[in-house]
Every structure is written in structure tokens, then in C-alpha cells.
């Protein structure tokens, strides 16, 4: 055999395997070295069909637009009109998703409350109970009822403006969570009735009911305890959106919260985040179909979350039939998560701004997903609240801009007919025509 290199001849360029890419091999080596799967925060990082694959058509001969800055385009939405005596009215169709105290710092929860309240919307507790920081600064607070029931008590239940019964979340439908010991300080431990410093498992299913028939009775109990006053949401991960939505309605939900796979988590296995659940885009139409089949669309409100970043994402989700949307990761970014100003510290942690996702380790340079007093102090809750409020208002303005361009005087009047899709996959998932055609895969020939 000739030695090509020695003889100066052309040679085959070294070729990396697509299957065994450098990233894949690095993960194999890391697993072999540590003996533990990768745990991280956030949602799916892989590319999946998303709202970017949809476009608005805008007004044309058959529709006339509304004048920007002049003609009104409403943004308020009422949630919980089915059974609750006191439905929640949001000024904007964007709300803040549940994120736990414990995972997030007290100042971060306060900032979320301040920002949401200033923008006229609600925020949501998480797996760890209700904090005074959040209740005190949230004019509308949704109290999550989770499998772990950490900190659950009837007094907090009654001072909530709504209850969100969490069946699953988009990052890990069918999975629980783990808050590692380094974030379990005395306060977090006390709220959860567990020892300080140990890894805390959040259960994957509720301890006292299984299945939709039980859920109906559980909802009855919660309504009886709260006097049928506040709305009860049921949150599901993007697993089987048609059936999950139908069963939530059957069980008596006022609101269905549907979280696609781009939705974040404080901590779970990367393998779970990337390989379980459906993209948000694929979840909305089946859920809306279930509501329509039951004659409950707009009567039981649908809140969609998972990967919402811009007013365009908001508008597209509403056009597909959602009543409101919810943000988590984007809200944290608005507060300062993954800000390049902390790049030197991200580098010390072996990562870079934009990619930092070890939220469970409690070493967040931005002071958001930590219980370290020094790091926590980096987040000014007043400034953070202002940033979040600004961001929420921009989302709303962007959504209004698109709604006006489509000729609607309320963002909830957006409809699938306002959209087309850039890819066959997106057209099939969103059930809107492929751009330049009248073809809706699976619906028309």
C-alpha cells in the first residue's frame, strides 16, 4: 500500500461521523467517566418544526387592515369562565408559566411577580409552594397543585387567584423532577418538609388520584375547598393533546394549559427533554379540535406554552386557536438569564452565554436559578420586574401589529386562515396551507 502522505499525494479528508459526531462522542465519554446521565434545565434544544415555519398572509383585497397606533386592537382575555365565580381577566394574552421557588431565587420570583403585575397579567407558583415574594408582588397569582404537594396548604390555596393542577409539562411528559441538594437551603427545605441539603425528588404522578375519573373528583374537592371561586386549570405536557384536552374538559377543567416540548424545566435528564413529547406547533390543533368537538372552544380556554419568544409566536399560537400563551424561559432571559455580560463566569463553569443550562447546580452567574446569597443579590427584583414588563409589552405590541395587519380588532380574532406554512411538516402540524398552494397535508388533496 502506498503511503499517500509521505509521497505528497491527495488523500481522503478526515471525516467525522454524523452518527458519532464529536458532540455525541463527548457525551459518551462523559457518561463513562461520571456514571450519571446528563441533567440540565431548559427545554428541547434540537430543531423541531416551530412557529418560524408559519407566516401571516396579511390583509389583501378580501380583507382590510386596521390602522396601526390609531384603531383599537384588543388584547384582554378572560380565563376560567366555565365554572369559576371569579374568572381571571388578563390585560394581555401572555402569562408567566409556573417556576418553582427553590429552583429560582426569592428575588427572581419577586421580579416575575412585579413584571407580570405591571403588564397586567398573572404569574404562577411552582413546585415548592407559594412565597411571600411572589404573592406579595403578583396581583394575579396562579397556584400550582403538583404531584409533590411541597408546601401545599388550604390557606395558600384560598389566597390564589387560580389553581393549576399539573399533570405534566412539555419538557418531560411522564417525568418527575429532581432538585439537587446544593439548592436545598434551610428555607427551601422547610417549605418542602425535607432535610436540608439532600436531593429532592418531585414525583411524576399525583399521590392520590390516577386517571381522568379520579381527576374529576380531585377537581371537585379543590372547588369545594375554595368555594368554587377560582378557576381551575389543568396543565398537560405535549404528549397526546387531543385526548388529554378532551379528558381535562371531561374532568371539569376551566382552562387547559398545553406545554410543548420546547417548554423548559428546572432540571431533568437531557435524554427526556430531547426525546419525549411533541413540538408545541404539533400540539395546538389537536387540542383545539378536541375543544371544538366538545363544543367547548372559547368556553374552556386554551393556554399554550413551549418556545414562545416573540409577538409573532404569540400571534401564531392565538391564530391556531389558543386563548392565551404562557412563557417561562423567555421570561428568565428577560430578567437576565444567559446574559453575555456574565460570559467570563460562564466560561469558568465550562459553558458560554446562551448555552448555560445547569440551572440545577445553583451556580447561576445571573443570580436567577440559585439559592446562593451572593449570586441572588445580583438580580435586582425591581429592575428585573421592569425588564420583564417591558418585554411583555413588546410581545403584546408585536402581536397587535400582526393582528391589525390581518384586519382584526382583537388578538383573539386571529384565525388559521391568516396563516400559511413554509414547510410540508409545518403545514401538516398547523393544518394550514403550504405557502403558494391550497394544500393542507392530511386535509386536502
Amino acid at each position, binding site marked *: 500500500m502506498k503511503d499517500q502522505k509521505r509521497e505528497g499525494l491527495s488523500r481522503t479528508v478526515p471525516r467525522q461521523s454524523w452518527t458519532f459526531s464529536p458532540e455525541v462522542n463527548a457525551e459518551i465519554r462523559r457518561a463513562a467517566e*461520571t*456514571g*450519571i446521565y446528563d441533567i440540565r434545565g431548559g427545554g428541547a434544544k434540537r430543531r423541531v418544526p416551530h412557529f418560524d415555519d408559519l407566516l401571516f398572509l396579511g390583509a389583501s383585497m378580501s380583507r382590510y387592515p386596521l390602522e396601526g397606533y390609531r384603531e383599537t386592537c384588543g388584547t384582554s382575555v378572560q380565563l376560567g369562565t366555565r365554572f369559576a365565580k371569579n374568572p381571571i381577566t388578563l390585560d394581555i394574552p401572555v402569562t408567566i408559566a409556573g417556576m418553582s421557588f427553590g429552583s429560582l431565587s426569592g428575588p427572581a420570583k419577586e421580579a416575575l411577580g412585579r413584571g407580570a403585575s405591571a403588564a397586567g397579567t398573572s404569574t404562577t407558583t411552582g413546585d415548592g409552594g407559594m412565597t411571600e415574594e411572589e404573592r406579595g408582588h403578583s396581583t394575579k397569582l396562579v397556584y400550582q397543585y403538583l404531584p*409533590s*404537594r411541597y408546601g*401545599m*396548604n*388550604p390557606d395558600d*390555596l384560598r389566597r390564589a387567584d387560580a389553581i393549576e393542577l399539573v399533570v405534566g409539562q412539555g419538557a418531560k411528559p411522564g417525568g418527575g423532577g*429532581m432538585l439537587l*441538594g446544593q439548592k436545598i437551603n434551610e428555607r427551601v427545605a422547610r417549605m*418542602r*418538609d*425535607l*432535610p436540608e441539603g*439532600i*436531593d429532592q*425528588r418531585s*414525583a411524576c404522578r399525583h*399521590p*392520590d*388520584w390516577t386517571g381522568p375519573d*379520579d381527576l374529576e*373528583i*380531585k377537581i*371537585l*374537592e379543590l372547588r*369545594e*375547598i*375554595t*368555594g*368554587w371561586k377560582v378557576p381551575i386549570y389543568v396543565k398537560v405536557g405535549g404528549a397526546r393533546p387531543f385526548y388529554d384536552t378532551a379528558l381535562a374538559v371531561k374532568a371539569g377543567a376551566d382552562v387547559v394549559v398545553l406545554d410543548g416540548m420546547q417548554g423548559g424545566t428546572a432540571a431533568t435528564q437531557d435524554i427526556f427533554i430531547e426525546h419525549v413529547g411533541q413540538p408545541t406547533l404539533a400540539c395546538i390543533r389537536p387540542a383545539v379540535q378536541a375543544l371544538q368537538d366538545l363544543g367547548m372552544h372559547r368556553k374552556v380556554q386554551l393556554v399554550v406554552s413551549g418556545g414562545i419568544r416573540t409577538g409573532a409566536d404569540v400571534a401564531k399560537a392565538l391564530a391556531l386557536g389558543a386563548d392565551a400563551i404562557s412563557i417561562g424561559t423567555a421570561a428568565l432571559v428577560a430578567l437576565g438569564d444567559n446574559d453575555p455580560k456574565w460570559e467570563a463566569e460562564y466560561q469558568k463553569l465550562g459553558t458560554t452565554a446562551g448555552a448555560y443550562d445547569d440551572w440545577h447546580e445553583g451556580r447561576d452567574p445571573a443570580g436567577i436559578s440559585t439559592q446562593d446569597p451572593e449570586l441572588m443579590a445580583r438580580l435586582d427584583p425591581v429592575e428585573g420586574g421592569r425588564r420583564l414588563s417591558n418585554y411583555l409589552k413588546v410581545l403584546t405590541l408585536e402581536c397587535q401589529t400582526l393582528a391589525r395587519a390581518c384586519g382584526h380588532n382583537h388578538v383573539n380574532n386571529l384565525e388559521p386562515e391568516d396563516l400559511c406554512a413554509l414547510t410540508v411538516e409545518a403545514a401538516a402540524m398547523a393544518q394550514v396551507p403550504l405557502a403558494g398552494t391550497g394544500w393542507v397535508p392530511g386535509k386536502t388533496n
Partner: protein
Amino acid sequence: MQRIDLDDVALRELNEILQAQGDDTNQTSWEIINPKGSHALAVGLDAPIEVTIKGSTGYYCGGMNKQATITVDGSVGPGVGENMMSGMLKIAGDASQYAGATGRGGLLAIKGNAASRCGISMKGIDIVVHGNIGHMSAFMAQKGNLVVLGDAGDALGDSIYEANLFVRGNVRSLGADCVEKDMTPDHLAQLAGLLEAAEADADPASFRRYGSARKLYHFDIDNAAQY
């Protein structure tokens, strides 16, 4: 004694009346008749009142109770006393699954047997079962005491945290990270108090104590076989 007949009064009205009682109420004794297995009876109470339910109930009887003493002259469905905070629930008959689930305080006394997952995720409640308990009881139990005069089913105390389990009869099997522990004089005194409060006639010295080996408190790949 105030009497409410559930043949005439709706569930909502019953709970509203009972929930309206405050610390200073002079209507401290209530009797509920014709429960007929209704769900969510006497839930969310927060007053030092005594409520007696004459007959069997459905799911979540006495859920999230504070202060009240609720007696059921019958058996109860799943989730009796779920997440109760304080007060006392006395069940004359048997209890279905998840009795005392996630309870944070108070005493749940069951004169009969309790089905599977009794005391699941308990967070401070005391539970005394005069009869037997089913499988997976005290799963992920965090705080409080579970006392069983009879036998315990499979996988008792699986993934238990800091709760104490006292069993007089046989334990079919222990769950992951649950081990038998020493019974100290303090434990015997504590157990005696619980037995007395639950009107159970038994010698504390005849019980064995179980709790957490604390080996699963921090994830370790070498423990993976136990999960």
C-alpha cells in the same frame, strides 16, 4: 348538636356551612346523615368543631382539614384526610387507597384496614391503623409517624425520607432504602402517645420501627439497581 341530612342539603351547602365555622363558633357539634358515599365531604374545615358522619364516604373525606375532629361511622374511599394540616380524623371502618396522602399534621386513626399507599408522601401527619395496610404504603414518606397494629404489605416505606414507621405485625417486604431501626425509649414513649390518642390497645414494646437508611439521599450510580 346540628344535624345535616345530605338527602336534603347539597354537598356545596354542607361544606359552606362547615367551612363558615370559626375559632369562636358556639356550634361545635355536627352530625351528617345519609352521606351515601359522597365525595369531598367535610373538606377544608378550619375550626375546633366535631363532625360525625353517619355512614360511609367517597373520595377525600376530611381533605386539608385543620383543627376539626371528624368521625366517620363507616368506611371511607380513597384519599381520606389528604393533606390534612391538623385536627383529627377517626374512621370506624376501613380506608381505601392513599389514606392520609401528603398529610402535614394532625392524627388520622383508622379502626379497620387501610389499602395500598397509605401515608404516601406524608409530610408530618400521624396515622394509626388498627388493622393491616396495603402495598407501597409510606412511599416517599417525608415526615410524621405511621403506626400499624396489623401487617404491612409489599414495599413498605419505599424511598422513605424521615418518617417513622411502627409495625406490630408482619412486614411482607421493605421498599428501597427502608430498613429496620432501633426502638429507643423516646420512640417507645412517642408510640405510646400515638396509640393512646388513637384509642388503640397495644403494647408499644411489641412494635418494630422502620425508617430510612438514607442511602438514596444523594444520587449515586452504584445504587441504580435500587431504583
